[in-house]
């Protein structure tokens, strides 16, 4: 039972922990997936932007070369237009590095032919992850590219100036061409590196994402599984508990049935005796005989009355809460004796009292039941054949407990019955008692966590000792 209680205490937090794990796992899973998709989308936008960047740069160099050889102003115009794409990207990069997200950076990206819906992701990634290794590497390649674009722009300006002044010689043309080709070649490398780095990052993120997803899904599955197994276990335990309770209930019901039948028998027997007495009284003419019968009728009723009050004591003892209160043992004894004086021969008995303890802290109801029953037994089982009948009452303090002793010189208890006297309905002479008295005494003593012992010798007398603990309830 104790183990079960401990388990009960533990299993409640357990379930909450599991639910918490599932909740957190789900939340993390959603967050991770959201941000990963954002990152991947931004990466795609960068790769896309790079392709515009590199295409525009290639077109620009093609137009510049045409312009170099044809001096067609149209080609020059096309060249400057195409060159705005990488230059816009360059402006965006520099602005983002220096000032973060602002209108100039966005304009730069738009000039770089990026789609306007991609701008948020692109800027977000740049601002938050510019120091992350793969992006930092890519930005570095981009920066290199931008520097080359600047050189490319300078060459374009020089070519344009020479053509405007008509100072372009053939060797100049060759010289410019080789420089353009050289820059284009280097730009190509930078552009490829940029794309490759981003691609590599994307693949890494994708792998990480898969691992994270698997991990969190496993966490959720495991948590849910253990949650269910705990619930199932709990259900089985509570089912078993209910079964045990049911069995106890059936047992209790059965005991109650037996009690009702026994009690009804004991309640009926004085009535049937009375009915019989009435019958024989009707057949009797002798008035003195009739008076004897009336006396017996009275006895029969007294017996029934006693039985009913025993049952009431039994039920009070069972149901009433223990109430610790100051009790006067002296008063209890005096009260009980005066109530018991109606019993046959009671007036012939000498009572001696030696009360070394009077005021104690205990349950008054139980003590009254105990004292009253012990005294009434001592009176009922007094030995009529003895010259002097006595009952001696003692209270004293011994071995950290209060003791009550009731001694008599009555008929005593035969050895063969000593083991049974505290059993329910046990009685050696049902003409005198219901068989409940000592059973109720024992229950009452147990209720106040005390003890009762008996020493008795047939025909000599009996001594009952009740031990009442002083520090009850610890």
């Amino acid at each position, binding site marked *: 039972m104790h183990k079960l209680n401990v388990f009960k205490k533990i299993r409640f937090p357990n379930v909450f922990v599991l639910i918490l794990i599932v909740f957190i796992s789900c939340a993390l899973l959603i967050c991770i997936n959201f941000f990963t998709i954002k990152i991947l989308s931004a990466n795609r936008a960068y790769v896309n932007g790079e392709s515009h960047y590199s295409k525009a740069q290639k077109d620009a160099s093609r137009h510049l070369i045409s312009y170099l050889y044809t001096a067609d102003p149209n080609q020059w115009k096309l060249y400057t237009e195409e060159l705005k794409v990488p230059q816009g990207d360059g402006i965006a990069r520099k602005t983002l590095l220096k000032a973060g997200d602002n209108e100039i950076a966005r304009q730069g990206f738009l000039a770089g032919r990026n789609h306007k819906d991609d701008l948020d992701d692109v800027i977000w990634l740049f601002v938050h992850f510019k120091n992350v290794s793969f992006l930092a590497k890519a930005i570095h390649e981009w920066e290199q590219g931008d520097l080359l674009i600047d050189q490319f722009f300078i060459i374009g300006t020089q070519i344009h100036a020479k053509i405007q002044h008509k100072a372009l010689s053939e060797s100049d043309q060759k010289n410019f061409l080789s420089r353009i080709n050289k820059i284009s070649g280097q730009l190509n490398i930078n552009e490829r590196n940029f794309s490759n780095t981003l691609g590599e990052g994307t693949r890494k993120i994708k792998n990480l994402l898969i691992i994270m997803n698997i991990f969190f899904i496993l966490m959720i599955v495991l948590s849910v599984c253990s949650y269910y197994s705990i619930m199932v276990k709990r259900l089985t335990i509570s089912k078993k508990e209910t079964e045990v309770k049911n069995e106890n209930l059936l047992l209790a019901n059965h005991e109650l049935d037996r009690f009702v039948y026994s009690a009804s*028998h004991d309640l009926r027997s004085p009535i049937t*005796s009375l009915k*019989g007495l009435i*019958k*024989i009284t009707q*057949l009797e003419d002798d008035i003195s005989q009739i008076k004897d019968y009336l006396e017996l009728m009275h006895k*029969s009723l007294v017996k029934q009355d006693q039985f009913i009050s025993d049952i009431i004591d039994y039920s009070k003892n069972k149901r009433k809460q223990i109430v610790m209160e100051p009790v006067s043992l002296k008063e209890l004894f005096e009260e009980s004796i005066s109530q018991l004086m109606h019993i046959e021969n009671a007036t012939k008995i000498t009572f001696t009292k030696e009360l070394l303890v009077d005021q104690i802290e205990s349950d008054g109801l139980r003590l009254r039941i105990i004292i009253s029953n012990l005294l009434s037994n001592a009176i009922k089982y007094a030995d009529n054949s003895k010259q002097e009948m006595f009952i001696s009452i003692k209270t004293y303090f011994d071995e950290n407990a209060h003791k009550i002793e009731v001694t008599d010189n009555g008929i005593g208890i035969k050895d063969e019955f000593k083991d049974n006297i505290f059993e329910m309905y046990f009685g050696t*002479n*049902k003409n005198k008692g219901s068989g409940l008295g000592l059973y109720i005494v024992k229950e009452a003593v147990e209720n106040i966590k005390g003890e009762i012992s008996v020493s008795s010798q047939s025909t000599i007398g009996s001594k009952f000792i009740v031990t009442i603990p002083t520090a009850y309830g610890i």
Partner: protein
Amino acid sequence: MEFKSSFLLIEDNLIDQLVIKQLLKKVLYVDPVFIANNGKEGLQWLIDNSKYHKPLIILLDIQMPVMNGFEFLNEYNKLSIEFKKDIQVYVLSSTLDPDEIIEINKNKAVFKLLSKPFPIEEFRETFCINTKAS
């Protein structure tokens, strides 16, 4: 009419003893009625005296200290058929417990269950029919 049978009453309640004794005396003119206070005393009486008092009718109570009616019947059933010849057992009880009533009626030694207070008229009738039939 007169009863040739002797009567043994096994009963612990003193008032019931008196009532049954008086009823038998006044209504059926039976005297004396032998009395045992419990099953053990009853058994002892049977062993000591039954052979002098046949035919014998036993009136047996169930709830008794020392040896109750059921324990008495168990012991009684162990006795020889020869011993039990001409002995009839009537159980006299005020019980309402159905289990107990079934147990009493099942016992082959029990001739009839009578409920308290001793129904003297019913007893006389069954006794007469029984003696006439035999």
